Structures are given as structure tokens and as C-alpha cells.
């Protein structure tokens, strides 16, 4: 879609002004129904460039620092925070001529997987407003799925790009850890956080990450990816590539609670595998230790909560954010944090503090680190034989907003494997179940982004959901 817009701009069939105006209008009109934006920017900054992104509108997840633009992380602790500097990814986008037309809502500070706990209220799924978007890159996924912007920047700590992409029927790409600088991304769990993108095609995902990736002197965990050109790597040649899927996740008999939607999602998944084979991709079933699989969520929760607890200690309302009330600095901080954070975050902080306590570190934090290590070792071993892991991005389409049993509980989180190992991982739409989009996910070895994207690119052509946006009930 981006290439197409770019060509039209070059050929003067359309103007950037019109594109931007249209995006802003659509964003404003969508707000009542979708509530995807925290901020819509009416007079966006424009910088010409000869890149493919020049003059094309983009929406940014509100946990990325944007100079002079409200950046709340969808948290009341930052409800008035206007940064004076751009995140590195934003700087690069601006230099590419991208035009930021809005900041999108997220589950507060990236925590939560539903899109229901943004400070500005729940984000709705453009395909069906009774359904959740998934999260935490909820607003970004909704904005792309609703056709407001051709792409939106997101971030992914457990599956925060790849789940909403699946639920909203768009492409969600989490590059290898450190490929895009984290400088200016509000930290959730530093060892897992990744800046990525939501688009309507694999090609667009490649175009965007090509522009924002690169080693950054302000992020020690970023790395030099000069030799990687994602867009140029998309040739669709996937014959003899090898994928594996995890038996325990993809075998319906392994589930006790076999809902209709689960059954259909798994069926669809196996249909997708057939299409892979038709493309000449070899697909194997691999059995994974069930204990390890069961450990993914607690491991993720332990590590993410511990890091979040410490990372978010800077949110006190003293230097930035609304000042709390109180006679002492402790009272002021307490007031700020008590009022500012939602209950889900507080729960994570309690868990985080608990596992960080000296007497509990061995039992929880170190144990989690060990499990993470075991899973990553197993994956790395498999990646010596296979190009990637293919899985259903989610075992069900987006649930009903009212059907969420508890926003605190999400035990199905195997996509966090991608964050444990820092692997490149991409979700693409693969069909429909109960009239809602579903997606498949491909995860590959570290720095092998080009290969993974190319496989997704070939499969995308075969599946036929490229450039899909929600028709939705209007």
C-alpha cells in the first residue's frame, strides 16, 4: 500500500496534503466508534524526503516519545506529559518524511493484552465494535485496520503487536530485539521491549522497519543492521524453506476446553500449513516439553513485572507528570501513583516487588531466567534445522468486550517466546472465524528478519489478505 501511495504522490495523482487531511478526518470520525487515538494532530509537521514514506501519514503508539506532542503511554501518571525530545524511531520516521497524524491508545504503558485499560477508555475492534482489539498496541492496530493510516508504529513486549494484528486482521511485525532503537520508548520490560510496526502488508512492514532500524548511540542494546535490506529481500522464493509448528499448541486434542472457535482456528491453521506446503515449504511437527510451554506465561509475568516495577519507578509526578498531593515527597509520590495507575499495573508492581525481594529472587526471578534460557536454547537448537516457527497467532478470534473473564488473566501467551529470545516475529492475516479475522505467526532466528519476512511475504500472496482493512459494521 505504501509503494502504491508513494507512486501516486510521485505521479502527482494525489497530494500529501490530501492524504493527511483525509487521515485526520477519518481519525476524527472514527473516535466515537473506535476510540483508537489519544491525540489527533491537526497541523502535523512535514519534512520532505525521497524515501517511500515521504508525505504519507502514520500513527504512533502513545508510549513513544514525540517532541512537543502529548505522550501519555495511556497512563494517568503521564496525562499531561509533553516530551521535549523524539524517540530515535520517531526521529528516523520524521527524517523519512513520514507525517505523524496521531498518537494511539494502548493498554496502560504496554501492560495488558486487551485494549480495554487505556486511560482514554477501551479501544474497539474495527471489524466489530463488540470485540476487543487485543493489546497493547490496540489503537495502532485499530487505526490500520480501519484504514485511517496505512501503517502505525507499535511496541511488543510479550505479543503486543502480534496479537492485536491478528485480532484486527492486519500485519504486525516485531523485528529482532535491538534492531530498532528503544530510545524514547517508554520502558515496560527492557529485556523484552521491541519497537515494531502494524501494516496491511508484509512489504509495508519491510519498508517501515528499513527506515527506522539501525544502531543508536543512545541504546546500548541496538545493533548495526546496515547489511540488512528487508524490502530488497522480498523475492517470494521460499521453495525448500523449512518451518515447524509445536504439536502441543496446534493439536486440538491437547485442549480440554474445545470451543467452537478454537476448533475452527486450529482447522484454519492446518489449512494454512497446507498452503505453505503448496509453496514448497517443508512443514514439520515438533513436540515441545509441555512443562516448558506451561511455564511461558509465569516466566513472562515474573520477568516483565520485575522489570516494569523498577522501570516505572521514575513515574512519581515530581519531575514530570501531574504532581501528587501531600506534605512530604513520599506522600506526593504515593498520591500520584495511587491515582495514576490502574489496578492491573498495581498488581504487576506487587508481583514485581515480590519477586525482586532478596529472599524471593532465587525462587522466582532466577528460576524465570533459567526457564527463559531453557526455552531459548530449545528454540535456538530448532532454528539450526528450521527457518522458522509457524503458529496460530491466537487460538481464537478477538473475544467479546464483555466476554473477557478477567483482564488480569491471559494464560495463552506463547508468542512471548519471540521476546524471550529477541526473535523476529510477524503475524499476518490468514482467514476468518466467526466473521472475525484470525492470523498466523512466523518467528525466526535472531537477525534473520529478512528470511522470515520473505516467507511471510510468499504466504501472504498465497493467502490473499494483503492490504485488507475492516469493512466493519458502520
Amino acid at each position, binding site marked *: 500500500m505504501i509503494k502504491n501511495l508513494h507512486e501516486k504522490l510521485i505521479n502527482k495523482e494525489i497530494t500529501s496534503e490530501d492524504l493527511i487531511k483525509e487521515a485526520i478526518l477519518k481519525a476524527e470520525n472514527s473516535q466515537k466508534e473506535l476510540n483508537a487515538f489519544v491525540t489527533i494532530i491537526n497541523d502535523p509537521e512535514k519534512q520532505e524526503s525521497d524515501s517511500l514514506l515521504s508525505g504519507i501519514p502514520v500513527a504512533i503508539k502513545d*508510549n*513513544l*516519545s514525540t517532541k512537543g506532542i502529548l*505522550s501519555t*503511554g495511556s497512563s494517568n501518571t*503521564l496525562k499531561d*506529559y509533553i*516530551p*521535549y*525530545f523524539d*524517540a530515535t524511531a520517531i526521529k528516523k520516521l520524521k527524517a523519512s518524511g513520514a507525517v505523524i497524524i496521531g498518537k494511539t491508545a494502548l493498554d496502560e504503558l504496554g501492560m495488558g493484552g486487551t485494549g480495554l485499560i487505556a486511560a482514554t477508555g477501551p479501544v474497539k475492534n474495527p471489524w466489530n465494535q463488540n470485540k476487543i482489539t487485543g493489546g497493547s498496541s490496540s489503537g495502532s492496530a485499530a487505526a490500520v485496520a480501519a484504514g485511517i493510516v496505512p501503517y502505525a508504529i507499535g511496541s511488543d513486549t510479550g505479543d503486543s503487536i502480534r496479537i492485536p494484528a491478528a485480532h484486527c486482521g492486519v500485519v504486525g511485525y516485531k523485528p529482532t530485539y535491538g534492531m530498532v532503537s*528503544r*530510545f*524514547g*520508548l*517508554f*520502558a515496560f*520490560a*527492557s*529485556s523484552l521491549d521491541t519497537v515494531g510496526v502494524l501494516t496491511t502488508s508484509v512489504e509495508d512492514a519491510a519498508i517501515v522497519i528499513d527506515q527506522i532500524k539501525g544502531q543508536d*548511540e*543512545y*541504546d*546500548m*542494546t541496538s545493533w548495526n543492521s546496515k547489511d540488512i535490506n528487508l524490502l530488497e529481500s522480498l523475492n517470494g522464493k521460499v521453495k525448500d524453506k523449512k518451518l515447524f509448528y509445536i504439536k502441543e499448541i496446534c493439536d486440538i486434542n491437547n485442549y480440554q476446553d474445545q470451543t467452537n472457535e478454537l476448533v475452527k482456528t486450529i482447522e484454519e491453521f492446518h489449512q494454512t500449513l497446507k498452503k505453505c506446503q503448496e509453496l514448497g515449504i517443508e512443514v514439520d511437527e515438533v513436540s515441545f516439553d509441555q512443562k516448558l510451554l506451561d511455564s511461558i506465561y509465569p516466566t513472562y509475568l515474573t520477568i516483565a513485572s*520485575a*522489570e516494569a*516495577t*523498577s522501570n516505572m*519507578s*521514575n*513515574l*512519581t509526578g*515530581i*519531575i*514530570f507528570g501531574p504532581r501528587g498531593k501531600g506534605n512530604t*515527597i*513520599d506522600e506526593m*509520590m504515593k498520591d500520584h501513583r495511587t491515582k495514576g495507575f490502574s489496578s492491573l499495573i498495581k498488581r504487576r508492581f506487587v508481583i514485581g*516487588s515480590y519477586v*525482586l*525481594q*532478596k529472599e524471593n*529472587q532465587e525462587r522466582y*526471578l532466577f528460576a524465570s531466567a533459567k526457564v527463559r534460557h531453557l526455552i531459548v536454547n530449545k528454540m535456538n537448537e530448532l532454528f539450526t534445522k528450521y527457518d522458522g516457527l509457524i503458529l496460530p497467532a491466537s487460538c481464537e478470534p478477538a473475544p467479546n468486550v464483555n466476554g473477557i473473564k478477567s483482564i488480569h488473566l491471559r494464560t495463552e501467551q506463547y508468542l512471548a517466546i519471540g521476546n524471550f529470545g529477541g526473535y523476529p516475529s510477524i503475524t499476518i492475516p490468514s482467514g476468518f472465524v466467526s466473521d472475525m479475522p484470525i492470523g498466523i505467526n512466523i518467528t525466526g532466528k535472531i537477525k534473520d528478519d529478512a528470511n522470515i519476512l520473505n516467507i511471510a511475504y510468499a504466504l501472504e500472496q498465497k493467502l490473499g489478505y494483503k492490504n485488507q482493512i475492516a469493512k466493519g459494521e458502520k
Partner: protein
Amino acid sequence: MALKVVIGLEMHCELKTKTKVFSKSLNSYNDIPNSCITAIDLAFPGTLPVVNKEAVKKALKMAICLNCEIPEVLIFDRKNYYYPDVPKNYQITQNTKPVGINGKIDVEVNDQLVPITIHDIHLEEDTASLDHYFDYSLIDYNRAGVPLLEIVTDPCIYSPEAAVAFLEHLRNIYKYTDCSEADTKKGQIRCDVNVSLKEEEAKELGTKVEVKNVNSFSNVYAAIIYEIKRQTELIESGKKDEIIQETRRWDEESGTTIRMREKVESIDYKYYVDPNIPKIKIESKWLEEIKAEIPLLPLERKAKYIEDYNLSSYDAGVLVKNKEVSDYFEECLRLGINPKEASNWITSQIMGYINKHDIEINEIFLTPKRLLGILNYLNKGTISSKQAKELFFMILEKQEEPDILIKKHGIEQLNNDDELINIIQNILDNNQSQIDEYKAGKTKVFDYFIGQIMKETKGKANPVKAKEILLSKLK
């Protein structure tokens, strides 16, 4: 019951670097408050630490000087606690793999070498400075993020003298290696002092009392003396139980330590590895390069001065006690000044002058080159040693070159034989009775004549020549 004091020290010293340890803000002292800060120092959302290689290098240099074991990789950890002097509400420090562990260094205490073992050395960020007023406090974040090296000794120091000698020695090493200005006046050094008493023969250490944030060596000394007295009195009056593990602070005004908080259980700082900083591999090649940069340290220089230049242990000790003085001395040698002569001038005249005026040796106008100027005149016999001293003060006070001063003030020794003979003859002619006394065996009278000669020549007579002539005349 003989009591023995056991002391452990934690010495914090700010490192000399261009920028802070995790940001590009300037590491500079005494600027306008909150002028040396970036978003990183204030922990704005999304900011990340980037380790300053220069700070790591200097930390490693100190670890090498203190003969520490240096790990293959460095790890930085977070120390989590809420306090406004750390905007992140965690301090980045080193707990898992610090720059050095198990070090050892000998320190001279009363002419004896005392070994002091180092538990660990770790690099961390300094905190903001807080000024508390009656109903408000002010924060200056300039200091937040300044590289701070903490050197922790084992409880292996047994006297306040040894504690101070150790600290002075370390300050010297900081200066010799250019790792820090190590200026206590600028608050660059702060110490935590752990003091406990035990019975001489006891194997177990006594209850440890920590005195925090002592900011000068004389206060370290005074705090230890005070704690020894306080704890001894408690023990001797049967109140040993009242010595509890606690944190106290040194109150300079009253000359006492005051309880800050009881350490019932030590605070849990929830240390864990900072995920934003990848492990830093220490290449052995890099270590070799750092090692090669380390100059001769005080005790090594001292040994060299004694061995190579035949200086007394005392003089050599005085010279190396201050790096600038030692550098001054070495510059003198480079200019060809005789080591003994240079040492004599520095340890007596120059040190006397700078101590009297409370200035540093490199602040005085009399550079080694100008000292050489004085010595050239002296050694050629153009001026007397008395005149040399006069010239020395003149240079310092008038801030003019030796050549110019000598010309201006006619400072010159009377070397002309004929002139001297005339003067001496004149004196002798007028002092017949003294000549008689001298010849009768009262040799003391000789000095009387010399005095007269000097008086007559206003001290310009070449004393050696004057003596020779006088002797020959009195025969």
C-alpha cells in the same frame, strides 16, 4: 580487658571524565545548578543509560592499582530505592560483577607498611545534591550521574591513623593516575566508616556501627576516635548491649556521631541486573593498554628517589606525598638540577612557602625552570646562598624573572679578590685587640671578623673567598 578497634572503609570518589557515566551531560563541578543535565539524568520516559567508556577505563585503572581481580565481563545492576536524589528511583551500580574484587595494597603507617585488603571496587552513578531548608529542599541534578567509584575495604584496619593513611594514599593514587581530582573541598570524596570494637583475643568481630557520609579525612579520624570512645565507655560500663548495628552520621559542630537509623534488618535494595546495559567484555589487550598508562605510584616513586638519588626516606616521603610536588621534583631533574639540591629546595624553601600560603606547588610563579635560574647563579658563585634565598622570595613575590631581578637589585656576590683584600685589611687595621685575642687562641673571634666582612659588604662577600683571605691574613 583490652579492646581492639576494627575499621572498614567505603571510600566514594568522583572520577574525572568529560561527561557523566551514563549520559552525555558534562561532568563538571560548580556550575549553575541544574545546568549539566539531559533527559537521561532526569529519567524522562524512554531514556536509556549509555556507559561512558572513559569512566570504565578509569575504574579499571584504579582496580589495577589496587591489585584487584578483574572479571572478564562487567555487569551493571540496579539498586532500587525511592529518593528524590535519584530520578530513576534506582541507582545504577555494580553488584554482580564489579570492576574489581579481592584487592590488596600496602600503606605506610608510621614508617611501617600495613597491608589493606579490598573487598571490591564498583562503578556507579553519583546522586543529585540536596539542600534542606526549614520547610523546603532544593535539588541540584548536576551531580546526578557523575561517575562515582566506591572502594570497599575489608574490616582490616586497626587504627584511625591507618584509616587516614589509607585514604590519603588512595587520594594520591587517584591523583597520580589522573583518575580523579580527588578534592575533598569539592565534595569529590565521601567516606562511610564502619567501626567496631572487640576484645583483643576475640575471633568474632564486634557489633558494627556505620558512620555515613564523612566528607574529610580529618573528620574520618575524629569520627573513629569518637566512636572508639563512645563504644569503649558503653562496654566498660556494662552497657555493651547498647551498641547496636546502626547507621550514624558525623556531626562536625558537636564533634560527635548521631544516630540516623537503626539497621534492624538491612534495607532490601532489590538488586538486579540492569537489562539496558549489555555485559561489557574486558579484553585483555585493553587491560594491558590501561596498565601501560599507569605512572609510577607514590611508594614506587619514593623507592626510586631513595635508591637512585640517595635521598633520605623522610625527604622522599615528603616529595611523593603530593603528586604535584613529586612532578615538580621530576621536572627539576629533567632540567638537570642535582636531585639532592632540588629535594632540599623543595622540601625546605618551597614546601615552607606553599604551606604558609596554603597554595599548591603548581600555583607558584617559581617554576622548576626559574628555580634552575637561581641555582645557576648560585653554583657559578655569582650569588651567595643567602642571596639565593632572597632571590627566591623576590621571584615569588614580585613575579619576575631571576635575570631581571638580579640586574635590577644588583644582587651579586663580591668575588673580586683585590676588593675583598682591601676590605678585610681595613677591618683588621681597626681591630688590633681582636687580632691579639685570636692569636692568643680565641678562635671564636674568627667568626666576628667574618661578621664584620659581611656587614661591610652588605652580605655580598663570597664567604669562601672571604674566609680564605682572612685566614691568610691572620697567620
